[in-house]
């Protein structure tokens, strides 16, 4: 690992604390599931992610919360090595994901609505292929267990393309959990699901995180999901981190009942003082 450069804080004491955490964790990055420093992605004239820094502590569940175009998917793609940052660094268990992602590839997995499993293959065939790629020696046993746990045993021999959205989500989750990843990256894991199925998926994720001591990074704009799963929230807007705090601290700071209200305060440019009525609210000019 190269010499760690010190990041200059940009915003207040909270930002200072966050940057200190990043700089400290950089030194012991191999034990830190995710360490992101000054991460920036520019597509042409559009800055999708703008100098963000954060770390994920082991066994934490953190939500990347933001509206459409906030930079959530691009951030996750950079963590996975699917997108190369314009500047800044991403380390997963100490590995630089732009250069050495294969050092840690079998320790993480992901699920996203932007990718699918091949439709013509049966669920069992798809899971068998990914078990092979992740080097799972006891694939038959593992697939049977995961299928039972996620209630897809009856679907195993059906073509993946013939499944409903909810069933496909469960199969995608089965693929993401096959190798029992220490780090699970989820992009909108319950998008387009009915509330019952979505709730069931959230429960499964929580059970998995507890059983595996796994770290989860969850990109979402679903507040119920974030409140249910995340113990920390990173609020993104226009590629920048606006807040990075524990959920309950955010609620308390903004004096709000729900994260949805906090989210609206933040993206509409109301500071926590304004939200609490300490000052006249000033809407962001659009």
């Amino acid at each position, binding site marked *: 690992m190269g010499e760690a450069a010190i990041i200059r804080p940009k915003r207040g004491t909270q930002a200072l604390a966050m940057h200190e955490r990043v700089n400290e964790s950089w030194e012991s990055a191999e034990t830190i599931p995710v360490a992101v420093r000054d991460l920036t992605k520019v*597509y042409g004239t559009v800055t999708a992610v703008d100098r963000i820094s954060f770390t994920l502590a082991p066994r934490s569940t953190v939500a990347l919360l933001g509206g459409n175009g906030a930079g959530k998917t691009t951030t996750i793609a950079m963590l996975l090595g699917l*997108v*190369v940052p314009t500047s800044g660094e991403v380390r997963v268990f100490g590995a630089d994901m732009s250069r050495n992602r294969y050092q840690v590839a079998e320790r993480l997995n992901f699920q996203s609505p932007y990718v699918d499993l091949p439709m*013509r293959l049966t669920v069992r065939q798809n899971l068998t*292929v990914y078990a092979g790629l992740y080097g799972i020696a006891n694939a038959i046993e593992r697939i*049977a267990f995961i299928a039972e746990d996620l209630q897809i045993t009856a679907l195993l021999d059906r073509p993946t393309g013939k499944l409903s959205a909810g069933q496909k989500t469960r199969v995608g989750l089965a693929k993401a959990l096959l190798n029992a990843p220490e780090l699970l990256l989820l992009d909108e894991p319950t998008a387009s699901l009915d509330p019952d199925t979505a709730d069931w998926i959230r429960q499964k994720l929580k059970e998995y995180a507890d059983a595996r001591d796994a770290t989860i990074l969850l990109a979402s704009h679903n507040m119920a999901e974030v409140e249910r799963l995340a113990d920390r929230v990173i609020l993104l807007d226009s590629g920048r981190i606006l807040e990075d705090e524990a959920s309950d601290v955010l609620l308390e700071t903004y004096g709000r009942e729900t994260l949805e209200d906090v989210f609206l305060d933040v993206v509409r440019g109301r500071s926590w003082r304004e939200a609490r009525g300490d000052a006249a609210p000033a809407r962001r000019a659009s």
Partner: protein
Amino acid sequence: MSKLSTPLGAVPVILPPAGLNASLRRIATMVRRYIYLLRSSGIRLIELIYWPFLQMLTWGFLQKYLAATTSPLAQAAGVLIGSVLLWDILFRSKIGFSTTFIEEMWSRNLGNLLTSPLRPFELVAALSVWSVIRLGVSMVPVVAAAYLIFGFNLLDLGLALVAFFAVLVLTSWSLGLLSAGVILRYGLGAEEFAWSLAFVLLPLSCVYYPVAVLPHWLQPIALALPPTHVFEGMRSILLHGTFDATELWLALALDAVYLLAGYLAFSWFLQRARVNGSLLQLGE
């Protein structure tokens, strides 16, 4: 082997991810995935044989017609059918490589593959192995049919056939790598490029006529293409019963250069796709 100690039911036993065995295992897994895909559709299987069979029939009957004329060239046994079959080895192998790669994009599976422990060179190796398997499925029945219908036995080319096969398949991989790279970078909009790339070689590699037919200025370009040496060699065997092995070594050397260039191009396009974020937008 490392066994996880968390209470997760049947915990996965993860094999060592690095080394030759791990690479071979992942390549075999990908080939298995392609076999699943082929097995899932009987139509695909029939299609693999259908086009080369029709091609062989057409040129076979033409050969039969010409054989009745007085032209000594036309009477040379099987030159046209031989050309068709060898061209199909190149074309089908290239199509097998490209189609299988495009299939990953159609099914929006590439993101899953590229975030798994599968290395890009392993993906390329699996596509290469699969292109040869597909070629076998496609060409063995057609070669047999050429013998049964027209009495043309491709195996009469002897050991040279093995070398011809190697040269053509290696060329097809170079073309496959280039088209896969372009599609990675520019998306499925560039699919037409993948289909048509092999046809650039059709007039230049002198499939149906000798190099001497080409204008002088075009001949060095033709000779810089490995398949040209294969088709010249085949005509030499069938018409004169002689064969210059130096030509084949030259063709194999050229193939090595093109294969390296193809892999470098693929790697470069893949890196550009990562920079441009196009891996996030791939799919139908």
